[in-house]
């Protein structure tokens, strides 16, 4: 077995040192009839056999880069510079643990400090943590944090919030008996959330650009929330948008949660991704997750450590702000390396390219009869209403190697009016030829 360094001679000698007659003597606390059950599983395989088997599975999937590709809905196909993957595969980052021994983990810690600074800057907030599992779980944690701060039992979710994020938040809150008020699905960003906020509301959760791609002005809802003593939680699932758009912090958000996949992380069928979590300084001690802070060592040299851990499960146990332990360290590193390569200048240009690709795509598709673009504003994603079931259109186009977008029925299977909606994303990876192919195939399918 190529991963196991001990040989039989080692094993015999070690058993002798231990004073155990057999290896199973070390398992003698296990009930006899539970030891050595039978398994319906194969024995070990060589590296090339495994590669062949898994390669065959991979070949049954259609990669985003294999042709015209327009799927978004909370995960986006962006180019990742080669440098990013090289750095995250370095042993020292890849095979390290959570930095519990800071003297020999300054690499990870300084990267986290840079990450926290980048996230705070992008979101327009004062502090950020060292990452969450992903955007959706971050959203649930933000709602729990608002509940701790406000001591109120009701969360209000925008009808433009990604339904998976809404479901995750609902699961987290309803479990402990809280009320979750969900505005109806809101394709045109026309909902009046302010009217739904009451004195029991702990937080209002609004996504921008929303799940339909609309760019939302959070200012008015922030004001309305604050007037009623509630917090505004802003959700951003496409971080590249912040190269073009006002940050949620500028618009009055109290907590910003984001999905960082777009920057540095592969699509990977939904995970691992990296949740971004930022807030105001005054709420710092209510944050979930790890925080990296600056300090000095015994010689007075600057260094970094995990800090404020009295919030956390390993110290505070049942009084912790969250049960989170592992986060998304390596994905946060990928985010940070990519962000460092981009810089503000690169991010702004990348955002402009995305917006341009989306505008071109929308123009080409809206020229197809039976297709209506519903957005008045958008960044790199927008929603179409088709004259027929969007799921069927997506399947028809997929059969011709065009991945057309997310059909409404996939995200809202129980909402009949969503059936004909198609959410289309276009990033810098989309070419003029891709757009033309998409428009032509869509025309045929409708």
């Amino acid at each position: 077995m190529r991963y196991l360094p001990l040989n039989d001679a080692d094993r015999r000698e070690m058993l002798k040192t231990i004073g155990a007659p057999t290896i199973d003597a070390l398992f003698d606390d296990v009930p006899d009839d539970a030891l050595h059950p039978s398994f319906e599983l194969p024995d070990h395989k060589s590296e090339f056999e495994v590669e062949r088997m898994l390669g065959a599975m991979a070949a049954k999937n259609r990669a985003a880069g294999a042709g015209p590709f327009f799927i978004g809905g909370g995960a986006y196909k962006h180019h990742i510079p080669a440098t990013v993957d090289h750095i995250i595969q370095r042993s020292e980052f890849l095979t390290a643990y959570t930095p519990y021994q800071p003297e020999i983990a300054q690499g990870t810690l300084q990267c986290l400090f840079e990450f926290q600074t980048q996230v705070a800057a992008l979101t327009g907030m004062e502090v950020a943590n060292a990452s969450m599992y992903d955007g959706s779980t971050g959203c649930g944690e933000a709602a729990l944090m608002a509940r701790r701060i406000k001591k109120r039992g009701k969360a209000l979710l925008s009808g433009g919030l990604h339904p998976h994020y809404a479901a995750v938040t609902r699961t987290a809150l309803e479990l402990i008996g809280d009320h979750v008020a969900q505005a109806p699905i809101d394709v045109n960003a026309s909902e009046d959330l302010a009217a739904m906020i009451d004195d029991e509301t702990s937080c209002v959760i609004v996504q921008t650009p929303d799940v339909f791609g609309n760019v939302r002005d959070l200012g008015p809802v922030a004001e309305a929330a604050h007037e009623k003593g509630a917090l505004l939680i802003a959700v951003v699932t496409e971080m590249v948008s912040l190269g073009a758009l006002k940050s949620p912090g500028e618009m009055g958000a109290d907590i910003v949660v984001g999905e960082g996949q777009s920057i540095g992380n592969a699509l990977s069928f939904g995970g691992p991704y990296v949740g971004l979590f930022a807030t105001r300084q005054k709420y710092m001690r209510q944050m979930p997750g790890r925080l990296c802070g600056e300090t000095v060592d015994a010689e007075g040299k600057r260094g970094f450590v995990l800090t404020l851990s009295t919030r956390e499960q390993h110290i505070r146990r049942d009084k912790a702000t969250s049960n989170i332990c592992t986060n998304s360290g390596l994905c946060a590193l990928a985010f940070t390396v990519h962000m460092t390569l981009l810089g503000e200048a690169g991010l702004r240009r990348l955002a402009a390219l995305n917006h341009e690709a989306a505008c071109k795509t929308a123009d080409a598709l809206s020229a197809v009869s039976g297709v209506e673009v519903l957005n008045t504003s958008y960044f790199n994603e927008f929603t179409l209403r088709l004259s027929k079931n969007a799921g069927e259109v997506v399947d028809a186009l997929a059969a011709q190697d065009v991945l057309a977008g997310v059909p409404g029925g996939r995200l809202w299977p129980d909402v009949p009016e969503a059936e004909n909606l198609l959410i289309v994303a276009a990033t810098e990876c989309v070419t003029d030829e891709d757009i033309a192919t998409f428009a032509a195939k869509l025309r045929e399918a409708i």
Partner: protein
Amino acid sequence: MTMNTQGRPTRANDVMVSNVKTFTGNKALQIEEPLIFEFGDFHGTGVDLPEPEGKTDRLGGLNRQAAVGLPGLSEPETMRHYVRLSQKNYAIDMGPFPLGSCTMKHNPRLNEKIARLPGFADLHPLAPESAAQGALELIDRLAFWLKELTGMPAVAMSPKAGAHGELCGMMAIKAAISARGEGDKRTHVLAPDSAHGTNPATAAQCGFKVDSIPVDSGGRIDHEALVEKLTDEVAGIMVTNPNTCGLFERDIRAIADAIHDVGGYFYCDGANFNAIAGKVKPGDLGVDAMHLNLHKTFSTPHGGGGPGSGPTVFSEALAPFAPVPYVVFEDGAFRLVETRRAAKKTGQCAQSFGRMTAFHGQMGMFVRALVYMKSHGVDGVRQAAEDAVLNANYVLARLKAEMTPAFKDHCMHEALFDDHFLKDTGIETIDFAKAMIDEGFHPMTMYFPLVVHGAMLIEPTESESKRELDLFCDALLSLAKRAKSGDVDAFKAAPVYAPRRRLDETAAARRPVLRWTPPAPAEAAE
């Protein structure tokens, strides 16, 4: 002096100078590195992107006006910055990383290679099912392996990490109790004093009150104390097995029976599954739910703190309450069941408690874990567990010459010591751990579990060779002897050879600085 033909000296000379202060502060291969914000160009970039035409603006008037304030570095600068930082990290690829309860085993590179195949890495989670059949097949295969290895009939794949898996298990328990109409009555969860902090935190996050059960003098759950706490207000018990003292809970079946007898459920924390994978099926022991850490037992990399992956297996009793989404095979194709309503229709997970995360879980980790399992096979998984237990017992047997094991028994996959051997030396567990750093080892888990004074929990895993273990044991024995000989100052000063000396954690917490901020304008104007 010996010279080569160019006159360059080729012999080391014997002049010894200690504590040379360099101009740069660098120490040869250890290079000091500022933050990107301190040397990066705030107008620079390390990517070449085409010029946008800039003809259309449909941003709804919400265009960014303010600067973001992020520097960009060229590719060589970026590379050098992060490579220098990487060299300040210890890692499993460099040497033993014996953090107890963390299972720092070798991360095979085949895992990484396969996870990067475009069919996996470049696959969108909302791609039509017809375009993702291989991915769904992989999830289904991995689910089969996990169910078979644990002897449990169902598994939820979506939890993102171990603690998320715990949450998954406890949510299912909560849902099951509510379905019985006992949600208001069964409000307590039991967990031993020795439990991971995530256990009580998870139970609390589900709205349960947590009652601690003491651990007996042998390091196992005090069965009598447990029985006293069993009432009809108990929703369940959370037990780690093998436990955090590195011992197998001998009374595991009696514990399971006792909790079932009062109508509660048995949650097993599977963090230590590496000790028994391929040897024991938890399903044979009365477990109702258990998470598996793919980043521990199944070799996916820890990445400096994540990502993890925490699939959670369920008994028949809890399976109906498992979360969405899940994969089914129907009419010759794999399909995802993504909502509670859809789950009701399929009949599987008919009372699902809902969704825990966007999309379908940590696919990148699933690929790596399945590659690991296929590579090992069930024979290799069993051998790995045996070697992990053998290595831990070898360390226990060798170190007890100078250090004090917390309990008399042999151990499972990790060896636990207390700080008794340091008594009256003035040296504490943390000093001992920091001295290990200078010897080139990552310290063990310290001060956990809480039931042992000054705990040192060593989990070598199966990835260590005997040669490496012998060096590790020799070094620790020598440190223990030095400690007893009264070399206090050296221990208090350790580490001295790491990129940083001991860091002031108190100062960090008292006045938290969590981000870089630009220097004040007055200074900047200079």
